């Protein structure tokens, strides 16, 4: 299932999509599958599985800790396909990954195995289209979405060339900062979405340190998708045990899902 399928639904319902992010293998391999099911059960429209990496330069403290925990428990790249296979079918599953992991696995091989597992596509935070020749070819070959990022600092030319390389949706990194950071003012986010829309009809997803249904509703007013990561990871980091984390996640997702439907 590709991202397009989820956006067709949310557009028909006249609302933004809720995208939930969780590193595969966190809090454990089995519980990451469980957590994704919980998010889907409680209203997530798309899922982003993070691929834990030793040097996550785009991520803030919460996601770094989650990735470290998964790696310390022995997480291997190929296990992202297991998780994908276990959760695919109900909503589109994308993988968000630093580029070295894909390159090391083999770009075409990664695309093939991910497609076979039922994956929709990749979000690549440290790969710009200028460096993505091999990935563009592989994603064409295996019919996968490819989501590149635009940022408040992007020039008009770069927004144009980046969205031209995207398929599925465009990721608007609306804060100049790492994941989990809240913008001092949210003015940059609507402005970036507006500038991006001038160059594409693709849906534009916004990540902005969202923690609540109210914040999700705010972003849903101008973005096509509300992407939530650190707050989801924190459900587990802040809980005594995994079952308590699952409970928190269920409540958070329900709140966020209500937010995008307001």
């Amino acid at each position: 299932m590709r991202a397009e399928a989820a956006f067709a639904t949310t557009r028909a319902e006249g609302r933004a999509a809720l995208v939930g992010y969780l590193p595969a293998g966190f809090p454990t391999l089995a519980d990451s599958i469980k957590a994704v099911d919980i998010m889907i059960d409680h209203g997530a429209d798309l899922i982003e599985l993070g691929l834990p990496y030793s040097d996550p330069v785009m991520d803030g403290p919460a996601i770094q800790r989650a990735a470290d925990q998964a790696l310390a428990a022995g997480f291997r790249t190929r296990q992202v396909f297991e998780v994908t296979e276990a959760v695919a079918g109900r909503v589109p599953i994308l993988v968000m990954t630093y580029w070295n992991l894909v390159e090391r696995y083999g770009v075409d091989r990664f695309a093939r195995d991910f497609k076979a597992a039922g994956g929709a596509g990749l979000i690549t935070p440290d790969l710009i289209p200028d460096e993505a020749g091999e990935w563009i070819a592989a994603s064409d070959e295996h019919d996968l979405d490819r989501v590149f990022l635009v940022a408040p600092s992007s020039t008009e030319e770069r927004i144009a060339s980046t969205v031209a390389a995207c398929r599925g949706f465009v990721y608007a990194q609306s804060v100049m900062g790492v994941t989990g950071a809240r913008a001092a003012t949210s003015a940059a986010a609507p402005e970036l979405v507006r500038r991006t829309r001038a160059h594409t009809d693709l849906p534009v997803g916004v990540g902005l340190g969202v923690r609540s249904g109210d914040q999700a509703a705010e972003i849903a007013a101008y973005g096509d998708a509300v992407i939530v990561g650190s707050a989801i990871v924190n459900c587990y980091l802040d809980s005594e045990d995994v079952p308590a984390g699952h409970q928190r996640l269920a409540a958070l997702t329900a709140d966020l899902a209500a937010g995008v439907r307001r």
Partner: protein
Amino acid sequence: MPNPDAGGHWGEFGGRFVPEALIAALDELEAAHTAALADPAFMSELDALGREYGNLPSPLYLAERLSEEAGVEVWLKREDLNHTGAHKIRNVLGQALLTRRMGKTRIIAETGAGQHGVASATAAAYFGLECTVYMGEEDTRRQALNVARMRLLGAEVVPVTTGSRTLKDAMNEALREWVASVEHTHYLIGSVGGPHPFPMLVRDYCRGIGDEARAQFLERTGALPDVVAACVGGGSNAMGIFTAFLDDASVKLYGFEAGGDGYGTGRHAATITAGQIGVLHGARTFVLQDEDGQTIESHSISAGLDYPGVGPEHAHLAASGRAAYEPVDDAEAMAALEKLARTEGIICAIESAHGLAGALRLAKSLEPGARVLVNLSGRGDKDMGNVVEYFDFADRKGQQG
């Protein structure tokens, strides 16, 4: 040396593997650097600064007693005599002047042993820039004296508590901080790594080492050296001395990486020798990584060489065969450090001792009287704690045996 292509690639190496959010800043930096190099006023200010403040050019010194023992002529480029004690002053003066030219008011830097941090704090003090240095928590403990130096110079030192708490994590943290502050902050990177244009830019500010040495060598001997040798961590001192000789086909270039406990033990920092091609800290290069592409922690007695990546231009020189790279382990480096101290009265940095040790090993296979130029990239004051610990330990082991 030809510059990289427009995207910052030397062959398959280099490029920009960073968030889109940083691209505008990298473009701005590249444009500013290109304009600065072409601006005679900038270049003469940098030149004057180097002479009057940095103690440049550094001398070329024929180490006669050492040469006698080695059986070849050993010439040392005395970067240890520079202000702040290493070649690194060249890089920071260039980048700090460029920071001012771009109208930015703050620099951030990563540091391992603290040498680049001290150099950055020094340049920040000189130019009146704000300065924040990211340093792995582990390293702030191992290098407390350099932390004190940076603070005395007015810099803020931020201990990094993520990952392995060493240089690579400090670099991650500097990149994270840069995304958030890029409007008024320059990332004063410490070596020839990172996304384009950093590897080219740092090389351009360090290449004075080789430009000076080549002219000095010709003047003193009427010829070029047979071999040029340097240690390689990220690779700034090595690119600094190699660049002037790249077109001299008769000059063999050797980079010596940290072999740590011994290349065979797996505990080392010999990135080109043992790494695979991958992406780390914004560039495609050789990386010490596991089967999945997770970075492997490096090991070396020398904090300045203890890094699991290497500058992409070195990766290209290795792949093209223009330069050769070999590991030198802790023991070999420390023996060379001691030998230099006893034959010449020069205590060099442990990093530089790797370059010297490699050159002395190579000397055995050279024609007698061959001329070897070694970049003595820094002095050893900062390393005395390690030296004391190392040789005490060796003595005790000797007694037990």
